[in-house]
Structure formats: C-alpha cells, structure tokens
C-alpha cells in the first residue's frame, strides 16, 4: 500500500454532489476531498454511481445540486479552465476505433493547439512511451485489450494533465496488462499528478490509492486510507499456533479473557484464531500467554480484505451487484 501524503492543497473538492436520472438517484450527496499529488480511489460495485461522479467532475455532466472545484476552478462556472487541466479516460472507448493510434493522438494534439509538426512529434513520443510505436499505423480496433487501455491512457496525457480521471482503468484486463496500467499510474503520481480512479477491484484500490471512498447507491459510505477502513471495520484476524496442542484449552481461555471474545478452533489441533479490531488488546495477548506458561510457535495478525470491508459496511458482499458487469451504461 502506498504511503499517505497528507500535506499539500486539495486538487479536487466536492460537496453535496447530487445527480438524478429520472427516478434514479445516481449520486446522492457526495463529498470528496482529494489531496494534490495523491491517488484517490472511488471503490464500489457496478451501478454505485462512480462514473456519474467522475463525469460531473470532468464537466461532462451538470450536477443537480452541490458544488465541486478542480484545482480551485468551479466545475460549473469555470468549466473551460477545468477542461484544460484535467485528462479523462472513460470507462468505455475513449479513442476512435476506426482511426489508427497515431491518427487518434495527432487529432487530440491538434485539438489541444499543437502545430502540425509538433503534433506528430508529441504523438510519436507518447506512442514510444507506451510501447505502441509499432502499432501506431494500425486501426485501434485491431489492438488487444491491454494496448487499447494504453492508447486510452496516452490520449489522456497529451498535455500532461494536472488531474487525471480514470474510470475503471483496468476492468476487463488480464493481470499482466493490469499491472502495466498500475505502473503507469504510479509513475504519473511520482511526477506530481493527481489521480482519481474508480474501481470495482478491491485489490486495485488497496494497491494504488492513498485514500479510498467506498461508494454505494450514490453515497460515500466510508472514507479513509486502506488501513483506516480495515481498522474501522475491525475484522483483523489473529492467528495463533502453540508448541504443545495440549495447551490449547488454556490458551483459549487466555484469549477469551484478553480479547473479550470466543476464539475459533482451527483444524490444526495446535492452532486458534479470532477476528478483532482491538489492536491494543492484541498487543497484550503474547505477554498474557507467556504469563500463563504457554509456549507460542507462531503468531500473526492479518488484515481484513476490502471484500470484508464492503461486507461489514453494507451487510452484503460487493460481488452481488457485479452480475451485469460491462453491460451497464
């Protein structure tokens, strides 16, 4: 997990964002604060409202209520300034599949105001940086999924945006392509960009994001660092293995007293486990066992997965709403 960077100004600030589509409250009062130079993750299942939030922040969609600024510019009153500072890679195709990779980039360079020669040069540099120099002359529709995402990313980076919105940048990619995209994102952030990404992958938010907002039904239901989220849910797993299996009943009662819960017996006759968020109590466990004369062979404190976080926050697993992945608009 990346370290948290708490210093610095806010790159994106939103308060009370609301968006309806007919009867659907797609976004239902969202507040966000994204520090400059960090990766902020919007984590939620399909239909949670992630895309709608990103589209409002990228000035593609006017909010029904609420305000937001990007690098201090109001998304409504200063939409043009916002547009000149942000890059966007949408969830779906954001380059023209009929054109070649080079043509797509040259077109975008020209639209940002590069001259003809400069546009060619810049496109070539971007293609090379993303290892697409050999594919630049081919129509994008012939690209593999990973290449597609890379040209999408390159297209968002034509003018080195200060803030980058990435809507599900790795959905549908194989693990290797996903790792490549992650590396690109990390490099961008090392260079000072701010990234707001949405994801359905708990691991992705854990890997990349300094802070995570968990989105469900258009609301932020939890926000914090990955560690904070896990701690607030309080389902860390304490694993204990004893030298002597005969000590298990005694260890069980020590654990029950110190952690104030009933430990679970594992299949291994010398092992015990328990789920707890009380790290202070966990710290007392080893001395208490030593006092009782119980020898410990292994001790570990595992963190809960973000899957467990989602389950604990919403009472249902995140996977429930992923059934129609890819087909939702």
């Amino acid at each position, binding site marked *: 997990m990346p370290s948290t960077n708490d210093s610095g100004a806010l790159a994106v600030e939103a308060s009370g964002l609301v968006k309806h589509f007919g009867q659907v409250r797609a976004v239902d009062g969202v507040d966000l604060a994204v520090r400059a130079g960090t990766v902020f993750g919007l984590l939620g299942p399909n239909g949670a409202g992630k895309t709608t939030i990103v589209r409002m922040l990228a000035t593609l969609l006017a909010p029904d209520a609420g305000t937001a600024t990007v690098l201090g510019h109001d998304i409504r009153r200063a939409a043009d300034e916002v547009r000149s500072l942000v890059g966007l890679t949408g969830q779906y195709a954001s380059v023209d599949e009929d054109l070649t990779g080079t043509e797509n980039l040259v077109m975008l360079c020209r639209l940002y105001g590069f001259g003809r020669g400069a546009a060619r040069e810049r496109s070539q540099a971007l293609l090379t940086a993303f290892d697409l120099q*050999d594919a630049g002359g081919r129509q994008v529709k012939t690209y593999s999924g990973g290449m597609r995402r890379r040209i999408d990313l390159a297209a968002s980076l034509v*003018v080195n945006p200060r803030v980058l919105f990435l809507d599900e940048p790795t959905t549908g990619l194989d693990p290797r392509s996903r790792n490549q995209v992650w590396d690109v994102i990390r490099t961008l952030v090392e260079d000072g960009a701010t990234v707001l990404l949405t994801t359905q992958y708990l691991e992705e938010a854990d890997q990349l994001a300094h802070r995570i907002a968990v989105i469900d039904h258009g609301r932020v239901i939890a926000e914090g660092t990955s560690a904070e989220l896990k701690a607030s849910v309080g389902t860390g797993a304490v694993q204990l293995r004893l030298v002597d299996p005969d000590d298990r009943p005694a260890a069980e009662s020590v654990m029950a007293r110190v952690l104030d819960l009933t430990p679970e017996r594992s299949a291994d006759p010398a092992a015990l486990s328990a789920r707890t968020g009380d790290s202070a109590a966990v710290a007392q466990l080893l001395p208490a066992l030593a006092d009782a004369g119980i020898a410990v062979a292994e001790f570990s404190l595992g963190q809960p997965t973000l899957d467990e976080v989602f389950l604990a926050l919403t009472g249902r697993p995140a996977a429930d709403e992923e059934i129609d992945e890819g087909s939702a608009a």
Partner: protein
Amino acid sequence: MSVDSAARAATREWEPDRELLRAALLVTDRPTRPAALSAAFTFGWRAILKIKHVPEQLFDVTLTPIVFLLMFTYLFGGAIAGDVSDYLHYLLPGVLVQTVLITTVYTGFTLNTDITKGVFDRFRSLPVWRPSPLVGALLGDTVRYVIASTVTLGVGFALGFRGAGGVPGAVAAVALLVVFASSLAWIFTILGLVLRTPNAVMGVSMLILMPLTFASNAFVDPSTMPSGLARVVEANPVSHLITAIRGLMYGTPEASQLLWVLVAAAVITAVFAPITMHLYRQKN
C-alpha cells in the same frame, strides 16, 4: 527495430519505461487553445479519415443512385414519360437530390455511434470551442455529399444525360445541394442526440426522408397528378430544391428559386443548430 524491442514484442511483454514515460510527460509549454475553426477543421479531418478507413460506408451512398437511375429510367421511364431519354433528363436532378439528402442521415448516425461508444465524452472533455465536434462532422460530411453527387452525375452522364447548364451548371447545382444538405443535417444531429441507438436514428430519419423525397417532383411531374396531391407535392420543400437544381443543370436558373433554397437552408440552420447545441450541452 532494436534487438531489445524485438525481443519484447516477441514475448508480448511490456514494462513501462519510467524514464521514457517521464520524458513524454514532461511537456512544460502548454500550447494555446486552437481557434474555433481550426478545431472544427480537425474534427472534419477525422470524418474524412473515417471515410478513408471505412470505405464500406460509401456503399449505399453510391449504390442507391445507380440502382434508382437504372430502375426508374428503364423500368418506369417509358411508362411515366413515354420516352426513356426524356425521362432520364427529368429524373437525374431528382435522384441527385434524393441521394444527397439520404446521405445527410449519416451525420446523425455517426454522432450517435460516437456517443454510444464513448468517444464523445473525450471530445466534450477537451478545452475547445464547444460546437466544433458537430461543425467538424458536418464539414467532413460535405465530402460524402460531393462523392455521392459525383457518382450520380457520372452514372447519369454514362446513361446519356446532357444538361444545357453544362459542367458549370452541374457544379453550381452540387454546391447548392451541399449547402442545403448541411442545413438539413442539423435535424438529424438532433435525432442522433435524442435517440438511443444508431439504428434507431437511421430508421426514424428514413421515415422522415422517404415521404419527403417521394412526395416531391423528383420522379413524376406534379401537373400529371390529381390536384390535391399536386398541391401537396408543390408545397414540399424538396420540390422547391429540385426545381432550383433543375434550373441550374438545364441552364435556366431563376434567382427566386435559388433564393428560396438559400433562405430555407438559413432558416433550418437557425432553428435546428441551436436546438442541437442545447441538447449537446445537456447530454447525459
């Protein structure tokens, strides 16, 4: 290709080269925002590239006039006008207009495809003159109108059409037609923004265009029609357009007819372009 990149290509593996990426991202000078027309021309260039890459999209644009000219001239020509050559003389300007008007439907179709695929989100997130993607698409589509016109005129010439207006008359006719078609396209951009799928746009647009082009003076002289029908046909704007086009091609242009078409084009644009832009800005 270096040995290194060949090896990487062979294993299909890629590690982002942080130094290359950094170098590519290190653009300190931001170019100034392009002029409105320059952005529109860039979008027009895109439309032309799409025609180059997907030439299949010109199939119906080119096949329709060929089929119509052959079918009407030889199947119905004798019955309608008594003489095949006379009928071709009457028919060609009508088929030319019909062909180009049907081509305008593609503007809405293409726009809707861009929206459903998501490309328009990127365009709308750019700091450019807001109408430029639409204006550019219309500019690019004029290439399609010219191609459709050229094919129709070429087939007509091969079948024996000789207009007294000659080449200048034909060029002027195509120019007038392109102006009118570009204004009409603003109606189909509205459909492109409102309807849900590209095919729905195509269907509804045809439903509008077919009666307009068939209930016109394109194929049959209204003086031979029952008086009620003739009044409808003569009021049809497409009939006015065809009359003006005939004037140019036959070498007998009338200022009032030309003016009628130009004013109609201006009115259509003045009404429908702002509606399109409003919908475009509000588009979810």
